[in-house]
């Protein structure tokens, strides 16, 4: 046992938990922590806004599968983390947020830069802690990391008053974590797995919908084995992209509001729907009451509360996908489902959804597809939220988990750049492309400074249509073209990049796209391409808001075709 300060105990514990990087921003109350930081083998990335720190920790986690850590000071520092924490919470990613707070004597007295961040983040964290004694820190950190990374992952926040960082206590590494109220179920119920197998064996038109949980459960291989043995077509959710290789013959893209027409039809015409590590979210399933009412649903998820939340389930299986899938595969009979697969193939031939139209104008779909070709489908793509996100999901084809990193649940614009920074730091050798909207990019573009500080070779592609494109699309389709508050006068993004020391090119025609991507890839450092895409291009297919999956509109109505 050694006598250490609270700051030292915290850092010692983080180091023992395998934390290598912290994304942070200093301030008054965390100074004792920053004072101790150089003595530990932990890299600190200085962000330019705390929201960036939370997104970077999230991007780091999504790219690596490991916990990401962010750090902020009290008050505004802590509240600036909120959007990033909520983003991680909605998409179930393991982010540990550490905040300082005012000294214990000042807590509750509205001290300078005091905010009740544990109260504020209760609904957007898996759990959070306010630590009032240095002697409680070690166990608290161990519990926090345990909660953050096991079961259904999720963000955990630890709030530490300034004088707790300074207080000394005996440090003892707690060997054991014991939480009476937290015992995730890993083994699926054997009887339920048998019933699921029976249902699958009797199915004529089964479909697997794979979600983010397959990626976080590291069960891509196990999923492929199940699909292949019983020849079950697989579609994914948006966050499940990459959980099943999109070049696999059984892959039928992804479903939802902007999913592929044939994926939506397959989900809607299946007789057995096998949801794996997903939560039957409204953007994926369309209007709940009209989603395939006759399908029997098998739902495999580690979080029991997801089962039966939106849909009645025929067979619920609570467990870890990596345990459940092989046991299910064992009991499932080999099958061919020839007729069913032929049916989906026919729908896909008639409604290909992903064809790139021949146009003279520079359309974004063409940019994404060219990027796919030029990178051999190997790049890690990080997106913001909006039209460019959907195009990046549709027209790049993903082979492996963690290749597409995007804010799905919360839909956080501005995630792209800090998310890409986190991903690149987690995987220094990966080719990381941040596909940005011109709106969202401006929400977090101050983090370009971090790209330069850390010499990250991130390639930044801005899809610049001078509009908040997705909002404009809705105003066009559902609000009678009343374009209100969506046109934006954009700054010269090349000059902004230049100000940070990042080179770039502007691309205005299709002919320039391929060369620009090649130039960016050949450049060793960061590079920015400002793609001046067609201003009124829309995302198709589309399930109108509040409509059912079967009402998917595959292509723009006549009057919109240009």
């Amino acid at each position: 046992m050694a006598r250490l300060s609270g700051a030292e105990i915290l850092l010692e514990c983080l180091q023992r938990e395998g934390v290598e990087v912290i994304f942070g921003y200093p301030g008054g109350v965390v100074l004792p922590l920053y004072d101790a930081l150089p003595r530990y083998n932990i890299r600190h990335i200085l962000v330019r806004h705390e929201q960036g720190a939370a997104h970077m920790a999230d991007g780091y986690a999504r790219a690596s599968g490991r916990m990401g850590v962010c750090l902020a000071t009290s008050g505004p520092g802590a509240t600036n983390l909120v959007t990033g924490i909520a983003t991680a919470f909605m998409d179930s990613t393991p982010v540990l947020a550490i905040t300082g707070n005012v000294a214990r004597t000042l807590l509750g007295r509205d001290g300078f830069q005091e905010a009740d961040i544990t109260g504020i983040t209760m609904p957007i964290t898996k759990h959070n802690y306010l630590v009032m004694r240095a002697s409680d820190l070690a166990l608290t950190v161990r519990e926090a990391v345990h909660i953050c990374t096991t079961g259904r992952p999720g963000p955990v926040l630890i709030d530490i008053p300034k004088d707790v960082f300074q207080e000394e206590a005996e440090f003892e590494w707690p060997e054991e974590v014991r939480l009476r109220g937290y015992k995730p179920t890993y083994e699926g119920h054997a009887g339920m797995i048998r019933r699921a197998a029976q249902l699958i064996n009797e199915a004529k038109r089964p479909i697997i919908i794979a979600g983010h949980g397959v990626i976080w459960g590291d069960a891509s291989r196990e999923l492929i084995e199940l699909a292949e043995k019983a020849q079950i077509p697989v579609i994914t959710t948006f966050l499940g992209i990459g959980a099943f290789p999109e070049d696999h013959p059984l892959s039928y893209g992804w479903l939802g509001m902007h999913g592929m027409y044939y994926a939506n039809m397959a989900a809607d015409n299946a007789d057995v729907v096998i949801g794996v590590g997903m939560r039957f979210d409204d953007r994926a399933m369309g209007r709940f009451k009209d989603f395939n009412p006759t399908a029997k649903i098998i739902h495999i998820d580690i979080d029991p509360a997801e089962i039966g939340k939106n849909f009645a389930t025929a067979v619920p299986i609570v467990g870890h996908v990596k345990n459940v899938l092989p046991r299910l595969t064992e009991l499932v009979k080999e099958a061919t489902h020839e007729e069913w697969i032929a049916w989906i193939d026919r729908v896909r031939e008639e409604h290909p959804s992903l064809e790139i139209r021949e146009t003279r104008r520079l359309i974004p779909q063409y940019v994404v597809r060219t990027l796919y070709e030029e990178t051999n489908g190997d790049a890690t793509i990080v997106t913001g939220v909006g039209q460019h996100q959907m195009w990046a999901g549709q027209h790049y084809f993903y082979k492996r988990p963690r290749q597409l990193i995007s804010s799905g649940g919360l839909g956080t614009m501005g995630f792209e750049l800090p998310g890409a920074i986190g991903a690149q730091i987690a995987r220094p050798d990966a080719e990381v492309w941040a596909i940005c909207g011109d709106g969202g990019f401006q929400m977090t573009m101050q983090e370009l400074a971090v790209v330069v500080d850390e010499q990250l070779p991130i390639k930044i592609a801005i899809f610049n249509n001078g509009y908040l494109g997705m909002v404009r699309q809705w105003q066009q389709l559902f609000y009678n073209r009343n374009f209100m508050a969506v046109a934006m006068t954009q700054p010269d993004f090349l000059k902004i990049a230049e100000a940070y020391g990042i080179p770039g090119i502007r691309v205005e025609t299709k002919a320039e796209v391929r060369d620009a991507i090649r130039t960016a890839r050949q450049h060793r450092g960061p590079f920015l391409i400002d793609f001046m895409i067609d201003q009124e291009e829309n995302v198709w297919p589309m399930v109108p808001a509040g409509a059912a999956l079967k009402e998917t509109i595959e292509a723009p109505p006549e009057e919109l075709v240009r």
Partner: protein
Amino acid sequence: MSSRNGRRRVNQHTVVAIVEDKPGVLMRVASLFRRRGFNIESLTVGPTEAQGLSRMTIVVDGESAPVEQVEKQLYKLIDVVKVSDLSNEEMVARELALIKVRCNNLNRHEILDIAQVFRADVVDIATNSLILQVVGDEDKINGLIKMCEPYGIRELARTGRVAMVRGPKTTTVHEEVPESIARIHASQGRRVEGVELPFSSD
């Protein structure tokens, strides 16, 4: 209400949650109900037979909340150790009420007669008011309140429901936590008392 005690309100559920006795646990539960749109009809909290654990009895409006989701969402809270839905159990459900009734020399006897019928105790008496204390299920308490109304109710305080399953079955938790961990769990998030903390502000 227990089926033995009369009619059961079909859309009401009595949920018992055994929770870690930690600061913030009530806020976590209340916040969960608010955020998910589950209506709380009553909520009571108190200590249990086990140290470090509290018992919450929550009466939920079942129209607003499928009780299965209430249970599962409660379980997701790390500080919630065990959740039991007592709605389908034979249970004893009780509530206590204090009713301050207006009275005078002429009608005091009538009120005392009524109290006797309801087996309510008189716990305070003054020249122009008295306090009745009554224990029972909600119907009984509602009945007494109705009988007192003509005299004038000056003030009313009700505890909300506490409930327990009949027979030897329990809804408690028997899981010992090692002393070193229990000690920290007992202090986690709690104010430091009895020590003069240094004053510092930056």
